């Protein structure tokens, strides 16, 4: 990630701003003038880490939504560059377009070749216009599908990185079959004869996220979210009030620990204190460790069993009641 990127602060991060700036100044002065301010630096660091701990130990679901969308949060390409030794991005859906909202390619991870697919948000307005804010069109899903098929063919595991507000809701997407593109990816992933490891690294926006998100293991970073609808959308439909986003975020149970409890994800991947954007290198390191563990486990399972286990995993999802008043079997 770019070090010169301007640090932005969410309202609840504000108490950290002054301290982080002061700390940066102290460290700069030490480097430039060899000032003997080490004691002062340590004291400030302690204060900073204590304040960070306090703020981040009691985040509300809505605050986590904001963190998942944090303008400084590492994106798919940041993790790809940090974690994989080699990455060659490949392009095109072989039907008529290439979608910059989804990046896909071949990579090497600790000696293992694999297919990597991720939704990519932009860093600034210009980049976001190109990347469509990470909201894929049908061609993005088709490119993803094409590379998953390549993974199956070459016996390469597939890693997908999820970070999207949702599938692109514009006219072009509808004209080119958005629903069909997502549906066929789901079917394809359900039967894919190679391991699929899914990581939600930011926003898991509904069907648009799931379109590359059906896998053998689904991991989620600590401050990522995954939801059937955005809190804004839910608030306006069920509360008829945009101000109700905090209530909606709470009601939807969209945070990583809640989804772990509901059995929708398999593991919460911890983030550095203060969130992935405070220490992207550390976040990538922890994520790589989790990837390694799961890929190693998945590699030991036969392909037949893998597809069967994947089916059973999703077969079990859902909570309902079965009443026994009818004479049916």
């Amino acid at each position: 990630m770019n070090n010169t990127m301007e640090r932005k602060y969410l309202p609840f991060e504000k108490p950290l701003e002054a301290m982080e700036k002061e700390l940066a100044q102290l460290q700069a002065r030490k480097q430039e003038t060899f000032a003997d301010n080490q004691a002062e630096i340590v004291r400030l660091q302690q204060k900073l880490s204590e304040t960070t701990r306090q703020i981040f130990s009691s985040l509300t679901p809505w605050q986590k939504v904001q963190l998942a969308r944090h303008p400084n949060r590492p994106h798919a390409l940041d993790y790809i560059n940090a974690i994989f030794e080699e990455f060659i991005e490949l392009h095109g859906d072989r039907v008529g377009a290439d979608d910059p909202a989804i990046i896909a390619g071949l990579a090497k991870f600790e000696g293992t070749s694999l297919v990597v697919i991720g939704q990519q948000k932009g860093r600034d307005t210009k980049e976001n216009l190109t990347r469509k804010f990470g909201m894929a069109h049908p061609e993005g899903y088709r490119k993803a599908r094409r590379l998953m098929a390549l993974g199956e063919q070459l016996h390469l595991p597939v890693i997908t990185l999820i970070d999207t507000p949702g599938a692109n809701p514009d006219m072009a997407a509808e004209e080119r079959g958005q629903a069909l593109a997502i549906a066929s990816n789901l079917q394809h992933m359900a039967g894919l004869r190679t391991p699929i490891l899914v990581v939600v690294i930011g926003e898991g926006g509904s069907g648009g996220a799931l379109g590359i998100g059906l896998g053998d293991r689904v991991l989620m970073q600590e401050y990522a979210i995954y939801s059937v609808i955005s809190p804004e959308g839910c608030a306006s439909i069920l509360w008829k009030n945009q101000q109700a986003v905090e209530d909606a975020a709470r009601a939807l149970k969209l945070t990583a620990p809640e989804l772990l409890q509901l059995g929708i994800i398999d593991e919460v991947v911890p983030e550095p204190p203060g969130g992935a954007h405070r220490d992207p290198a550390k976040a990538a390191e922890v994520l790589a460790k989790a990837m390694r563990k799961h890929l190693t486990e998945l590699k030991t399972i036969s392909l037949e069993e893998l597809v069967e286990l994947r089916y059973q995993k999703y077969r079990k999802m859902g909570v309902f009641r079965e009443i026994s008043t009818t004479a049916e079997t």
Partner: protein
Amino acid sequence: MIFRKRYARITPRETPEAKKELWVKCERCGRIVYEKKWKEMWKVCHYCGSYSRLTALERIELLTDPGTFQERWSNLISADPLEFVGARSYVDKLKEDMLKTGLKEALVTGEAKIGGFPVALAILDPHFIMGSMGSVVGEKFVRICELCLEKKWPLVSVSGGGGGARMYEGALSLMQMAKTSAAVERLHRNGLFYISVLTDPTMGGVAASFAFLGDIILAEPGALIGFAGPRVIEQTIRQKLPPGFQTSEFLYQRGMIDLIVERKDLKQTITRLLNIIH
């Protein structure tokens, strides 16, 4: 997620003593239709030809051989796994729609015969929480697919779902897309045949999972079919959508649908397909 009501809501099976329901007003053309004629035409206005939504029970009557439908798994009922508290509770919404529709859930599943051929049937009723996919919808769909695998029967599904997502069930609702798609994948791998009929409206997660995974996709004329709702698109692009956008005809022109079939011909068309592939 929520769409304009394009037609007057006609409550099925009015109490017989209240004989005032002799006339129905078509909301599209505004003309008054004699109720008997309305029913004969399966809720298609015989003046302007516009389609009104059928309930699951009417749909069964339309498609299956009389007396052959046997419902399965009607004993599956939604739980409230998120203990959803919003402007109103999930439990209240469920109760209200159960009363309104006489159904226990949005998806009605069972076995039946169509033109003499045994089939497994899954019908999504858009009147029950907009035909959205909760855990029960996903579970019943998977069970009907498993019945197909056991009996080697073809699957016929009829989709009418306003938004797909059932917000009250959060991400569990979202996962029903994965669950139902995985079940269709099993049908494919085992060489079974799946006909999907799209009716007004088939949107969101319903469209983006089992509805568009039919080996053959039929649609009723003029149905609203797509992923994002028209209002969401209009908000995104900040302009009005052209007329006919996201209709059956629009999708047919773009190669997304096999056939547009009039309601009165639907049973015959399905029978002809089953006759070739059985």
